[in-house]
């Protein structure tokens, strides 16, 4: 039995929350349910969906090598890009987290690339990595006399190129690391110093444990966005995932199935597989985090 005020609060609360409730029902819950349904159909938007049972999933697993290529490419990218970005974000944050002249200028310089519109940065990198006249290969030639590789255009270098590019956008993670570093109580360092800890020991036994929640946050965010990597590779390969599918990422292949081949049922099945992979990865990280994440005050 609710009291008058509880009833009033419930009514008011729902009234204020109603935009979200409506949005959730129409733009999240309904599509979520329909997406499951579509994944069991053959559907091209124009004609009504036709039930095909598990055909889409069967095709994904047993008949579509590109699906596996896309999955492999995405996992490959994630496996290298996420740790690399975490490490370099943390490294730069640690360098910045000291009383150095020009600290805020440096912070700005490292942060800027992460706010550039992705399309612009993709076009820019396409030019920077241009095999003939791009900046990187010109400099390699000028400084070391090395003929640089074809980067994006080369099957061996296309993924490493994208991984290197992703390091350019670590600004957000870096700022979060900086905030995390600022939260480490200075007294802990003083105590560690009194205990005779050197720079490495302080990092290993004070900084790193205190930063684990921040690392976890950046790791989860990095994983989720890396699995959905799309815009850069769409722009840089004209939506084709070239050369020879070496940059056919999962989200790109899903997009192609949806809007090039109009196989929306098939793409829905792909979306659910992606969701499962992301969920498994996130849950895996969160479960493991109980072992390595240290929370203040525990």
């Amino acid at each position, binding site marked *: 039995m609710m009291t*008058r005020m509880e009833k009033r609060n419930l009514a008011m609360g729902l009234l204020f929350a109603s935009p979200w409730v409506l949005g959730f029902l129409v733009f999240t819950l309904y599509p979520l349910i329909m997406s499951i349904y579509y994944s069991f159909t053959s559907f091209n938007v124009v004609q009504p969906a036709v039930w095909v049972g598990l055909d889409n999933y069967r095709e994904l697993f047993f008949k579509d090598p590109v699906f596996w290529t896309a999955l492999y490419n995405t996992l490959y990218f994630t496996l290298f890009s996420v740790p690399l970005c975490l490490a370099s974000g943390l490294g730069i944050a640690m360098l910045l987290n000291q009383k150095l002249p020009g600290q805020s200028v440096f912070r700005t310089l490292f942060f800027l690339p992460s706010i550039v519109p992705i399309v612009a940065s993709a076009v820019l990198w396409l030019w920077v990595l241009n095999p003939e006249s791009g900046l990187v290969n010109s400099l390699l030639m000028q400084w070391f006399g090395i003929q640089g590789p074809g980067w994006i255009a080369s099957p061996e270098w296309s993924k490493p190129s994208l991984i290197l590019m992703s390091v350019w956008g670590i600004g957000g993670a870096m700022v979060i690391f900086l905030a995390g570093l600022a939260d480490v109580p200075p007294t802990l360092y003083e105590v560690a110093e009194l205990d005779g800890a050197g720079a490495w020991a302080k990092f290993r036994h004070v900084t790193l444990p205190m930063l684990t929640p921040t690392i976890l946050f950046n790791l989860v965010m990095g994983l989720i966005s890396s699995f959905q990597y799309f815009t850069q590779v769409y722009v840089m390969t004209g939506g084709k995932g070239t050369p020879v599918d070496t940059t056919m990422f999962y989200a790109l292949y899903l997009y192609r199935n949806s809007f090039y081949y109009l196989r929306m049922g098939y793409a829905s099945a792909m979306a659910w597989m992606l969701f499962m992979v992301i969920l498994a990865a996130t849950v895996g990280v969160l479960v493991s985090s109980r072992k390595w994440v240290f929370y203040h005050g525990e």
Partner: protein
Amino acid sequence: MARVEIKNLNKVFPGGIQAVKNANLVVEDKEFVVLVGPSGCGKSTTLRMIAGLEEVSSGDIHIGDTLVNDVPPKNRDIAMVFQNYALYPHMTVYKNMAFGLILRKYPKKEIDRRVREAAEILGITALLDRRPKALSGGQRQRVAVGRAIVRQPKVFLFDEPLSNLDAKLRVQMRTEISKLHHRLQSTMIYVTHDQVEAMTMGDRIVVMLDGVIQQVAPPLQLYHHPVNKFVAGFIGSPPMNMVEGRLAGENGTVHFIDKNDAVCLTVPPERHAALKGHLGKKVTLGIRPEHLRESGTPQGAEGASIKALIEVVEPMGFEINLYLNLGGQSITARINTSVEPTVNTQHVLDVDMHCAHFFDMETENTIV
């Protein structure tokens, strides 16, 4: 102006905690009533129910002739001063004070007149254009009071308004609020945990504990005639000494003997009648620090003195507070002497048994 009446008031929070238990109280028109008690005793909850910020679980609240249980706060014609001032940080002092009147669509002229008048009374006219951030704690408190005044409400509610101020300001604001009450002649209900504030400000004091009203009385009556051990111990500073023991009566005499059999005090004959029923039973003796006196002074009652070890001496100027150890029980004495006693010596004090209180050890109610 109005009287406030609370009938069988109860408040049960979700989760089952009962913050107020069957409270009954009448605050007369133009009266200044202080609700006092330790934190968690339900005094603030009671006040917030009067304000309409908390819902009544059962019981009635009347303001004037109106039953206000279901009336929203804005229509109760009350004003409230909060502990943390609750000034709107984004508004000037003027706007803070005027806000309630603006919402009630008072004419601009009237608002201006009231705000300036209130500012005059509180001496904050010079601050009207400032924002709360630029004010000191005392000034903020004045603005908070001013905001209440301009509304000219039927009832003023104060929720620990002075606890965020430093000691000196607190004393100053205390007298100012008292003066304000005389000037405005309106009903005021004031919540505090500080018994000194309660004693100095209230026409009547309501002592609460664990959601239950213990006693409602004017300050001096509360001081001299507490209804139970809690009220006796809560009111007065330093607090009343409580010595556990029993009453022994033989041959027309009555003695109080402490639980260690270390002290035996003779009870004066005029109190025998009241204590008759408790002879041989366990009681707590309550004795205020000022009723312990240097041995040999005229008021010392016959056959009622104690010898205790002085642990701390606190010279207060006019008086001295002594903290003593009486067979394991701590007691405090407030004596008036020119010679400062020495720490760690045994000291003999007379107990004024005419002023002693006796409490039933089980019910903790006052026997006499």
